């Protein structure tokens, strides 16, 4: 019987069936479940790499070494891995390598919505885009063959909606392809200028061969219907289109780079009106325009966000399905927020009180930027906080640096916080860096990393010693403190900020969601003592809420985990432990 699988599980299954023996990744929504699923297959190698660059480099080595290899990351992870990627396109593969880029139109869980099909054009590699989980499995399998046939890495490009939608999948049997033999071949794999010039010739030949392949592959298919409109589309947009316009003619592209020019021209010749339907950038449309085809695209459809069936219906059919419920009511927004007991809350509460300039980073703690904590000045990409804090200091001087902190999670620090910290030491910065060490990669669903001491399969391994690492870099002042002990945390932070030397504070406390045991006490707000000052409300915890009728704070026993933060914030000692 067919099984329901999210797109990410189907990709892992496709790699498994294709005989892949190595899979690497750094976790990142919406890509995370790909390699965590692959790790469930026994006897194969899977790893969480410290970052996407390393993940791809391990993949490159495995491919050259002869193993079919799957590498997965979110769209912005490909930026981190772009350096090896562009040159790996020159060397080509030995055994097949498929790089999954999981893009996030609509930014469900990302800092931008870049369109990674662009990488395919820049790196001159094939890009394949499935439209449901069955295609995710089948296309992944096929991608390994394409990789080997054309001696190229292949990008499998998916989006959040594909990665996290379950659709029915018919699985197949695994093919044991075995290891390809490894032979030293320096002109192919050593990219010195003299060798690379020759490889570039091969890359240009290859992209022409891939263009020919694109003309005939089953990955691209025409579905004829009403020829007054012909729509070229790919990915989940195809499903939205079919939902609202089952009758139109469609050229569904499964291979979005390189494009099949002849096929597209023959499709264009048959239809009265040619439209490209693609989320985000006009990647397909602009190429068609460069060929001189008359085509509509982004003048109809937005460059912004995720598409939907009703949006396509509205643009192409002029019907609006959103009639409105008739509920005339403003609905307060519900942004995500830190969990009750979250160790980050203690940090951001303190940073706000001290009115510091906070250079932030990527993780659950980025939520510290939101009201009521309002505790972040800038957040750009993984690892940027430390470099930004040094830049702030170099721009404004050492006195200003007494008011600047960098805040970075443990997994993010290992990902790309180490080199900027070396820069701080090397260039005599006096930054104060807080590593929020919650012993996991929390935001993406609790993956292990080098500093947790466990592998992707939850097996023990040598644990990266963060304090020793930081000291080895040349930071002399390393403090470890519990961020939910507010007085101690604040005192430590003041001391290190005032020091005209670089220092690192490790705010150490496990993620509240990892704490399995029930709280050993219960708190309540004594209404006699509560002076309605709302200080406890301003920590932004769902464990405590405000009741306007009597103007008192109340603990919610269902959500409170008794972390003890709000009693420390209350200046009237109104929050007490329930006796007995």
């Amino acid at each position, binding site marked *: 019987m067919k*099984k*329901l699988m*999210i797109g990410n599980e189907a990709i892992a299954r496709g790699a498994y069936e294709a005989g892949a023996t190595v899979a690497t990744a750094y976790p990142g*929504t*919406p890509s*995370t*479940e790909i390699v965590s699923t692959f790790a469930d297959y026994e006897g194969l190698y899977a790893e969480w790499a410290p970052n996407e660059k390393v993940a791809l480099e391990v993949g490159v080595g495995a491919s050259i070494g002869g193993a079919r290899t799957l590498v997965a990351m979110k769209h912005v992870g490909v930026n981190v891995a772009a350096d090896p990627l562009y040159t790996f396109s020159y060397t080509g593969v030995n055994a097949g390598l498929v790089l999954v880029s999981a893009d996030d139109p609509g930014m*469900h*869980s990302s800092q931008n919505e870049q369109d990674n099909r662009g990488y395919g054009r820049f790196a001159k590699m094939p890009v394949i885009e499935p439209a*449901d989980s069955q295609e995710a499995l089948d296309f992944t399998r096929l991608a390994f063959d394409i990789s080997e046939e054309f001696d190229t890495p292949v990008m499998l490009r998916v989006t959040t*909606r594909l990665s*996290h*939608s*379950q*659709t*029915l999948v018919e699985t197949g049997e695994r093919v044991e392809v075995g290891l390809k033999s490894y032979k030293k071949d320096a002109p192919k794999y050593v990219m010195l200028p003299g060798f690379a010039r020759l490889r570039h010739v091969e890359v240009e030949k290859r992209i022409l061969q891939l263009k020919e392949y694109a003309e005939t592959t089953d990955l691209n298919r025409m579905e004829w219907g009403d020829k007054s409109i012909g729509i070229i589309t790919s990915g*989940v947009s195809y*499903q*939205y289109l*079919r*939902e*609202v316009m089952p009758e139109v003619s469609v050229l569904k592209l499964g291979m979005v780079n390189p494009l099949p020019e002849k096929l597209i021209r023959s499709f264009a010749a048959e239809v009265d009106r040619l439209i490209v339907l693609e989320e985000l950038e006009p990647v397909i449309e602009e190429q068609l325009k460069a060929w001189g085809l008359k085509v509509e695209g982004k003048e109809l459809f937005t460059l912004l966000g995720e598409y*939907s*069936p*009703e949006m396509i219906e509205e643009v192409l059919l002029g019907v609006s*399905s*959103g*009639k*409105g*419920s*008739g*509920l005339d*009511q*403003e*609905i*307060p*927004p*519900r*942004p*995500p*927020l*830190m*969990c009750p007991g979250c160790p980050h809350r203690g940090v951001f509460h303190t940073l706000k009180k001290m009115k510091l300039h906070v250079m932030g980073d990527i993780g*659950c703690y980025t*939520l510290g930027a*939101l*009201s*009521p904590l309002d505790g972040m000045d800038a957040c750009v990409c993984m690892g940027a906080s430390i470099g930004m804090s040094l830049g702030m200091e170099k721009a404004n001087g050492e006195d200003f640096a007494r008011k600047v902190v960098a805040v970075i999670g443990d997994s993010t620090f290992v990902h790309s916080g180490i080199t900027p910290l070396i820069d701080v030491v090397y260039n005599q910065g006096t930054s104060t860096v807080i590593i929020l060490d919650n012993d996991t990669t929390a*935001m*993406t*669903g609790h993956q292990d990393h080098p500093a947790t001491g466990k592998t992707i399969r939850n097996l023990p391994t040598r644990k990266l010693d963060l304090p020793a690492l930081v000291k080895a870099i040349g930071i002399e002042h390393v403090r470890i403190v519990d961020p939910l002990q507010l007085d101690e945390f604040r005192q430590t932070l003041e001391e290190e900020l005032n020091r005209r030397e670089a220092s690192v504070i490790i705010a150490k406390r496990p993620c509240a969601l990892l704490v399995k045991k029930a709280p050993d006490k219960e708190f309540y707000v004594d209404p006699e003592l509560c002076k309605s000052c*709302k200080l406890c*409300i*301003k920590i*932004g*915890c*769902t464990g405590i*809420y*405000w009741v*306007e009728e009597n103007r008192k704070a109340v603990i919610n026993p269902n959500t409170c985990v008794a972390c003890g933060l709000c009693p420390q914030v209350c200046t009237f000692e109104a929050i007490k432990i329930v006796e007995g």
Partner: protein
Amino acid sequence: MPKQTTNVLIVGVGGQGTLLTSRIIAQVAVQMGYDVKVSEIHGMAQRGGSVVSQVRYGERVYSPIIKKSDADILLAFEKLEAARWLDYLKPGGKVIINDERVDPLPVMSGKLKYPVDIDKRIANLIPDTTIVDATRMAEECGNSRAANVVLVGMLAAAINIPAEEVENAIREMVPAKALEVNLKAFREGQKYLSATLNRL
């Protein structure tokens, strides 16, 4: 088998267990031989944000997401979320609301007000609305955390899918030690909605 696709929209607050509910319903639809698609939310929104799971089943399903004004049933784990997603309900659709209030951040901090009687206002607007205290019912079954399975029971009764199939799916997806409570919670939910329907 009905040609028409059934659209089930399940909404709530990250952490309330909407994912398990949508997966149970989807699994049952698979066992009944339908084409099925489910759209889920993972990642940042799960941290206490507004979350939505969409289950679509029928003879042939294309889009994994439901169009506005096209959901046959809206199951809300939280009252405000019912209101937020009400635009997605089709005319004549059903609404099931868990009588649970979870204040979003702007309300907790006093910047905005939680709309009073929001569930009753929805019930006035949508004739086929059922409001239930699933948390209390789950508590009575032995564990308040089985509230999502109470809601599965109500959903199963509302969209008329066979209880036996749902119970099998629950057996597959729920850990053994929690099974008994969950099965009881499911049956209570189912009974509750059937009784409500009979009163109508």
